[in-house]
């Protein structure tokens, strides 16, 4: 079967590629050294104040660039611009197919700057080049997939509408709101892909976008916006607004003209946004002028996870260990899909001991250090706060009497927020430490007697994002497949690394559940509405004039 679009190819690593990338990292570093990141509002790069330093998490002494946060009044200006600009109206009037070309172009541009973006991710968020490379493919895929979907939906809308003789019927797809403004607040852990996806989908659907990246990844956000401008998206349509979530983010979420919000981040902030939206619709909406009473809505929302992998004794040993390591420790576990709870099914035959024994040996092989050293498994955690939080979880677990096995942190790791991988055994599943999302390179190991008990344990969480099983026992696999409550389920493979159009991504329960899955064929429908269905009587004097 022909797919609607082909996935981008990842880098094929070899000596020459390694050399080129290392050179690119140095030139990127040099470029950033004298670089200030300003908000970009309607083509003006200014209007910021109170700079924050964007530091390299692998080397806390290295300041990469200075980021100027968007002033509230400047954000207000962006909203005004959108409401007034003719350019914005023109963008909205374009057909889906026309708009989709811009995204395709942006995808091509990202592809042409692949090494540059890998370098940015290595420097700004401490991502290993191989993980960064995969993320860039994901960003490209998201843009191309949504662009292809837009064309598909347009065709579908055209073909599916019935017009009998004497009637001309059409339906128009686009944003439902008069001033179509979408606020996109996105995280630092996938600074390119998760930003590009919702931004691209909103733009495609005809919205203008206020894009606020996480403070920790403002530089990458800036260069993403830059790519979009280069691809031809008008500067009045897309605005780049770096800044703090508590102030700028909160202000924009509650803003009366911002009608659509997409958010990826922590569950706590997600809930706050939901509350703000509900309050707005309940209290503020009735006070607005009658022509402005469009409801505020959340188009897409992805939040936390507390993900689980079940391993039983029929699992292929090496495959299972690889799956656990990749799921739990790649990018230091800082993925919403990362593995936090490993459930080992052991019916008293020593499998638990042998498997954990292997894991303990395996984590000693994990090298932690700056991702500029390509031989590392993962790099630093994002910032000081994360470092302190994760270390304190490890210490608390120890105080509670858990058994902790730590990997090694070599002295040459450097002056960054490095944490060696650790395994925590002996805490029950309902312990608060186990239940809270860790978002770091730690793994809780739990023991179950039967597969049923394992699944019950696995489901006993507020989240439901990813999960899976490593097994060769078809009955067990079938049971888990049926009963595990997750949005993305994996068998005999890592539970991270969903690919666009291969594994549409999104969870249930507290993990999200807003809208269609990211990277799936329906995602665009989170934004796109059948705004208006036209029906026209083509008869004059009772005679259908346009009949065939």
């Amino acid at each position, binding site marked *: 079967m022909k797919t609607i679009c082909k996935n981008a190819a990842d880098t094929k690593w070899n000596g020459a590629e390694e050399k080129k*990338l290392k050179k690119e990292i140095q030139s990127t570093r040099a470029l950033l050294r004298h670089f200030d990141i300003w908000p970009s509002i309607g083509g003006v790069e200014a209007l910021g104040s109170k700079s924050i330093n964007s530091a390299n998490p692998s080397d806390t002494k290295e300041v990469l660039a200075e980021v100027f946060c968007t002033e509230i009044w400047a954000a207000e200006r962006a909203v005004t611009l959108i409401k007034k600009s003719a350019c914005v109206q023109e963008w909205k009037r374009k057909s889906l197919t026309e708009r989709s070309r811009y995204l395709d172009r942006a995808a091509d541009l990202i592809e042409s700057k692949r090494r540059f973006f890998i370098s940015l991710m290595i420097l700004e968020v401490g991502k290993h080049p*191989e993980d960064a490379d995969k993320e860039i493919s994901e960003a490209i895929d998201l843009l191309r997939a949504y662009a292809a979907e837009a064309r598909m939906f347009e065709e579908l809308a055209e073909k599916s509408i019935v017009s009998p003789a004497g009637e001309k019927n059409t339906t128009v797809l686009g944003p439902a709101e008069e001033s179509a403004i979408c606020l996109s607040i996105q995280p630092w852990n996938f600074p390119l892909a998760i930003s590009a996806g919702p931004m691209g989908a909103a733009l495609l659907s005809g919205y203008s976008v206020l894009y606020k990246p996480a403070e920790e990844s403002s530089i990458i956000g800036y260069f993403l916006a830059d790519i979009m401008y280069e691809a031809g998206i008008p500067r009045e349509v897309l605005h780049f607004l770096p800044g703090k979530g508590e102030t700028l983010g909160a202000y924009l979420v509650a803003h009366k003209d911002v009608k659509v919000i997409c958010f990826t981040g922590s569950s706590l902030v997600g809930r706050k946004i939901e509350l703000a939206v509900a309050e707005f619709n309940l209290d503020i909406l009735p006070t607005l002028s009658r022509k402005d009473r469009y409801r505020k809505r959340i188009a897409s929302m992805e939040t936390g996870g507390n993900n689980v992998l079940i391993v039983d004794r029929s699992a292929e040993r090496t495959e299972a260990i690889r799956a656990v390591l990749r799921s739990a420790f790649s990018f230091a576990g800082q993925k919403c899909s990362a593995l936090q709870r490993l459930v080992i099914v052991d019916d008293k035959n020593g499998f638990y001991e042998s498997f954990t024994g292997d894991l303990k040996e*395996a984590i000693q*092989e994990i090298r932690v250090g700056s991702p500029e050293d*390509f031989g590392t498994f993962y790099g630093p955690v994002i910032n000081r706060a994360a470092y302190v939080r994760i270390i304190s979880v490890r210490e608390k677990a120890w105080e509670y009497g858990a058994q902790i096995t730590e990997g090694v942190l070599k002295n040459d790791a450097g002056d960054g927020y490095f944490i060696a991988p650790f395994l925590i055994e002996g805490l029950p599943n309902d312990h608060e430490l186990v239940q809270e999302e860790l978002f770091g390179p730690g793994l809780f190991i739990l023991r179950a007697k039967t597969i049923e008990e394992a699944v019950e344990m696995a489901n006993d969480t507020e989240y439901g994002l990813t999960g899976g099983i490593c097994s060769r026992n*078809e*009955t067990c696999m079938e049971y888990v497949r049926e009963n595990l409550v997750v949005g993305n389920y994996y068998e005999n493979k890592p539970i991270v690394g969903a690919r666009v159009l291969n594994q549409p991504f999104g969870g249930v329960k507290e993990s999200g559940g807003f809208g269609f899955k990211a990277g799936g064929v329906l995602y665009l429908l989170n934004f796109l509405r059948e705004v208006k269905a036209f029906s026209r009587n083509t008869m004059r004097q009772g005679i259908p004039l346009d009949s065939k």
Partner: protein
Amino acid sequence: MNTFTVDTLSKAIRKSRPMTLTALFLRMGSLYPVLRPEFLKLVDAASSVASPSEYLYQSLRPLADKIPPHLRAVFWAGEKFVPNRLSDALIRSAIDNLLTPYFLLKDEKSFWKTKKRFEREGAGIILDVVGEEALFTSEAENYLASYEYAMKTFGGKVAVKLSSLVPSISFNPSNCKENKRILKEKFAEILLLAQKYNVSITLDAEEYFKWCLLIEDVFCETVLEDRFRKMSNVGVALQAYRKDSFASAKRLLAVAKTRRYPLTVRVVKGAYWDTEFAIAEQNGWEYPLFERKEETDANFDRIISFFLQNREHIYLAAATQNPKNIAHALKEVDGDFTNFEFQVLFGLGEAVRRTLCRLKIPVSVYCPLVRQGGSILDALAYLVRRILENTAGNSCLLENL
């Protein structure tokens, strides 16, 4: 001597084919493609699931209407009337006793016995310590130890898998330069051992994207080092299904010429076809192998001819069981067998080996041996690869079974 045609060879091979249950088993797998994946899964899972028969019934039940009636009757009767424990034992012993002797040697005793038998009939032996990529350091060290043990105990020719000598967890494909340094170190260690015990070494072929080109670099650079330059009993496998294999052949010849001492090249067709296909597709890479078997066969012949024209530099081992390729090689060899031999797989190539032995043509047998203290589990990937290629519809081996 040069009157071998494909027909006469095929006939001779067919005449000396061993009639084993395993052959029958394989044949069944190729006759009923729907059974093939189930059969592979069973071999893979038998040692780790509680009840393999339960496992087999479960996986076959949904396929009931696709299985031929007589087999269905056998399964049905088995499920109904044979107690699980008995059928478990049957399946386990079937895999152990029927399958393994046809694919690999389980212990030292059977190795010595086999070696004696082969030598009596005039065939050589290449020892392959069964194993795959190592996960962590201790595993890699174990592999190194078992290679040393094999060299010390068995001598002769030993096949080495470089990927089993490094812990793969800390082996990132992007870290090329460092990876190469580590592999060179490991290969040098192996070569020093080979010098010490005076054995021949050939590096095995491996997965394309992660290992293949890296290993070729490691090989070419190491054998040019002064301390190893004079070793002529060192070699490498070259997979003819790779589109770029002819370029590699040229490179190997150039290296042999530069060092002025010959190298051994074992030309094989390649055993990771399905794996490479999946890896390439999952990463969006171009497929690095010939997609049609005939192309691989033709390329194999081409490489054989190329090396045979340069016999003073390359000791050539043609690893094939296909009568067509054998006939082609024999024609090129033209009765002069210096620096040339055929290589066949243990068990699977038995008919070919017997035929070649009878014709007094030099042949060695590639014998996978479960390593000291290891278990059949180490060999599962090898087993599955072999079964996969030998139950494929276009397998030349099946014609000989």
